[in-house]
Every structure is written in C-alpha cells, then in structure tokens.
C-alpha cells in the first residue's frame, strides 16, 4: 500500500509539472521559441501572488483572479516589446536574450524580496485529506491542483483545435508570411500566445507557492522539470506533456523513497534514460 501511496503522490505532483511544461510547450509550438526564463516567470508569479495576498488580505486561490491577468499582460508586453525582436532563423538571440531575462528576473526578485524562503498559506484546505482506499489518503489540495492541471491542459487543447484563436496560432506557426495574408498580425498573435503561456504560468506559480517554500533562485529547476516533462511526453502533444509530468513526478517520488537525496536525481536519470531509448518521447506530434 505504501508504494501505491507514493506513486499516487507522484502522479498528483505530476500535474503541477505538466502545468510547468504546458506553457513551455505552447510557446515552442507556436513560435519555436524556448523561453529560458520560463521557470523564473513561474517564481515571479509566486511573488506577485505574495504581494496580492498580503496587500488585499485574500487567500492564494482568490489571488489568482488578479495574478492571472497581471501575468498575461506582462507576457503580452514582453513578447511584443522584446521577444518578437529575437525571432528569426538564428538560434542565438532568443536563447541568449531569454537567458539574460532569467538572470534579470532572479536578481530583480532578490533585490526586492531578499533570498528569504517564503510560502503562501492556503488555510484549512492545506491539511484536509480523505481516505480513498483503506490506508490510502489523498490531500484535498494536491487533488484539486491535479484536477485544475488536467482542466488547464484540456482547455488548451480545446482552444487550439476548436477556436479561431487556436486556428490563428496554428496557422501562424505553420507559415507566418501567409498568415499575414489572412489578416493576422503575427506580432499580435505571438504576443497572445505568450500572454496565454504566462496565464498558465500564473496558475502554476500560485500552486507552487502554496505547495513548497520558494525563493528567487528556484526558477531554473522548474524550467528543467517542465522541459523534462515535455521531452518525456513528446514534443507538440499537450496530453503527452501531462503524461510526461506524471512520469517525472512518479520517478521523483520513487527516488525519494529510496533515499531522500535521490529525489531529483531519480527524475533526471529517468529523463536521460528516455532520451537515450526513445528520444521522440512517448506521444510525439512534431519533431524537435
């Protein structure tokens, strides 16, 4: 039973990793951009939520009402003002600019908030749990987070494949030139994609802030988890990303059970093993 419990916990945190990955995957799909500052933006969202909860006295989940639009606007402005200039055939500019952005965000947060570890309190819901099967307990909050993660991914699928905006994303990703002939301003389309990505990041950031301690330096690790989930699941597939997140979460949980120091290593090793054995991931739709 204990192993079942451990795997279950791994699955639930996998939902969070899948959310880290979803934003990354979206941006890569639409504009072939990998945002190295992705993890730091998740941490930024956590701090924005911190400010909102402190300033307005609301709980973290309610703060989402403000954090999501704020991050979406930041995403739009970031893409339109800075990242659109890096797009093109050359690989270096987007990589180095987002790397520079990562450093700026980390150190900016350090200056504003110091390196102190923070945590957001969600109240009673944090300790509530129910017994699923005999001896198997699920926390209400982790389950809620997992459910929301699945809903977010389902929502993104629907958006991409059943709405005009999703059509615009796919068309612009296929052929930006001809997309313009359809009346699509590609600068705007890319910025909308980034805004959407940051909206997802906002949700992920708030969940992260409630779940663990956070400080300005933990961004890169979140980027790596998101990235590993994307590669394990397979590029271009949203549901694959969910599967990838779950596989990663479960690997880490099993690793932690063997030895607490092995938690992160287990995840990385599973990632590298999958990279070695099945580099296209489990559910690939596009090639890297």
């Amino acid at each position, binding site marked *: 039973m204990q192993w079942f419990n451990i795997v279950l916990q791994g699955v639930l945190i996998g939902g969070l990793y899948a959310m880290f990955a979803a934003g990354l995957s979206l941006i890569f799909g639409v504009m072939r951009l*990998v945002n190295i500052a992705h993890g730091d933006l998740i941490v930024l969202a956590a701090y924005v939520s911190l400010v909102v909860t402190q300033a307005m006295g609301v709980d973290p989940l309610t703060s989402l009402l403000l954090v999501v639009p704020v991050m979406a606007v930041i995403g739009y402005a970031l893409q339109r003002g*800075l990242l659109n200039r890096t797009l093109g055939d050359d690989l270096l500019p987007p990589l180095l600019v987002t790397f520079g952005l990562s*450093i700026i965000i980390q150190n900016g947060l350090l200056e504003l908030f110091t390196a102190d570890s923070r945590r957001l309190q969600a109240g009673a819901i944090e300790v509530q749990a129910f017994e699923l099967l005999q001896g198997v307990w699920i926390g209400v909050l982790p389950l809620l987070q997992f459910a929301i993660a699945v809903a977010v991914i389902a929502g993104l699928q629907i958006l991409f494949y059943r709405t005009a905006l999703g059509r615009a994303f796919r068309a612009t990703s296929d052929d930006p030139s001809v997309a313009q002939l359809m009346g699509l301003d590609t600068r705007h389309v890319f910025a909308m994609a980034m805004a959407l990505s940051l909206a997802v990041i906002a949700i992920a950031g708030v969940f992260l802030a409630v779940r663990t301690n956070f400080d300005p330096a933990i961004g890169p690790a979140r980027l790596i988890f998101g990235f590993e989930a994307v*590669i394990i699941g397979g590029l271009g597939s949203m549901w694959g990303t969910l599967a990838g997140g779950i596989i990663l979460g479960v690997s880490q949980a099993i690793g932690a059970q063997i030895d607490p*120091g092995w938690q992160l290593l287990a995840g990385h090793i599973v990632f590298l093993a999958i990279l070695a054995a099945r580099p296209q991931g489990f559910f690939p739709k596009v090639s890297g």
Partner: protein
Amino acid sequence: MSRVEHATPSSRVGVALIALALVVLAVAPYWSDRQTLRLLAEIYAFVALASLWNLLAGYAGLVSVGQQAFVGLGGYVLFALAILLGVHPIAAILIAGPIGALVAIPVAALIFRLRGAYFAIGTWVVAEVFRLLASQVSVLGGGSGISLPAAVVVAMAPSRQMREFEIYWLALTLTVIALGAIVILLRSRHGLALTAIRDNELAAQSNGIDVWRIKFIVYVLTAFGTAMIGALIFLQKLRISPDTAFSVNDWTAFVIFITVIGGIGRIEGPIVGTIVFFLLRQALADLGSLYLLMMGAVAIVVMLWAPKGLWGMIAERLGWQALPLQRHLVFEKEAEGKQ
C-alpha cells in the same frame, strides 16, 4: 601554383602586440603584487573558458548553458586524485583534461539527440546531474564540500609565494595553449569547416562537410579544455563544493556575457569581453545582485542591437584581425611580379 596565406596587415600588428603582452605577463610575478597575480590568473581562466564556449557556440553552433558540468568535473577530479590517490596537483590538472573528454563522449551521445534551445537545456540538466552526484560523494565532502589538505598544497612548492607563482604561470600557460590550440584548429581544414558551419550550417552540410562529426569532436575537445581550466580554478580556490563547482552563475552566465559582449564567433571576442567584464566588476563591485541584473540587461541590449559584440563592431568597421586567421590565396606569378 598558389598557396594560402593567413596574415593581414592588422593581424601582423596584432600578433606583435600579443607577443609583447605575453612577455610582460610572463614576468608579472616580478613586477606585481599577490592580489594582482590572483586577479590576472582569474582573468586568464575566464579568457580560456569564454574562448572555449565561443568555439562551441560561435563556431560549432552548439549553445551550451551547462559547461559548468566540466568546470566542476575538472575541479572534483583534481581533488579526488590529490586527496584520494596522492597525485601531484599539477599532474592532476593535466589528467583532468582527458577525463573531461572521456566523460563528454557519452554525454554528447545523449544530448545530441536534442536540437537548438532544447539542446541547451539538456546541457543544463547534465550539469545538474553532475552536481547532485557530487553531493552524494561523501568521501569528497558530500553536499558541504571539502578543502585541499595542507599536505597536498605543500607538495606543490615549499613556500606560499612559490606556489602562487606556479599557479599563475600554470594559468597563463594553459590559457595560451588553449588559445593557441583554438587558433591552430581554426587555421586547419577543420577550422575552415567550422567557419562554414558558423556562417551557414545547411550550406556547409550540402558541401559535404560532416557537420555532426565535427560538432561532436568540438564538444569533446571543449570539455577537455574546460575540465583542465576547472581543475586549475579550484586549485587556486583551495576548496570545492557542489554548489560552487557547478555554479551556473559563475561558469556559464559570466562566460556567456563575456562572449556576447566581446563578440561571438570571433576569436578576439572573448579576450575583449573578459577585459570589459573585469573592468565593470571593479567599477560596480559594491552593487551585489544589481550587478548581475545590469549584466543581464547589457547582454540583452548587445544581443539585439550589436549582435556581433564590441570586437565584432570594431573588426567589421575597420577590417581588423588581431590574429592571422584569414585565408587568402596568393598566386606565385603575383608574388614574382611584386619583386
């Protein structure tokens, strides 16, 4: 009959100046103080690291944000060999190179399956794995790290001054060798292939250049050099820990900023960039994390509006080359006619 010449008027001046600088720097222990020597050694290490990163990213098109994996590996090889096997530190530094190269082979086999920015993050993952593995090695201090025992330190030279001189000359020598090796590589046929890859990878491939084999070789050679420099760096520091050995900020962020600001894809770029970096560091030392923030902003600005970096701008405008790396064909008849 014709032959290929590499020198240009400006490169002759450049070589002369560099030779002069080397002479002055070689005798630095006799005209400068201990602090300056340490600073110079640090500068050499960064010039070497940045030049190696430049070779990887600017010429082979492999952007790595995980070179700290090999810096830390080199450091840990040094400490492991010296502490556990009683190897002389300088010998250990020389052994770190081949070990770095050997480790790079399976690493490359894995991460070469990734492309572009995903490759970059893959290199980061590898560095993280190395860091986590190092924390597990308790005989080398585990997560908190370890200091170089006095016995090992003394084995290098009896007096502290002599040891400092030795480390300084070692740093200078290794850096000159690294740069020299890079110049020789770039002047060779493989170097021509690399320059072609730098300019247009697809065209290079359709001209019959085995792009992936060359990238693989460059990755392994860069790991070789980076590991040796890493060993040297930690010999100077006398202490190692997983977080310092595999620090992204120290060994990747600074190196990238140096190369971007100095000029990617040109061999003089890292040298110019390192000088600028250290001048800025002296000027802005008290600013703490604001300093890194500014470096990030400067790197972004340079990348977007001056993508060829400082040296790139100067070299293009004035047609300068500090080192003889150009290739032009000289026909015998032409040479005769000039007589």
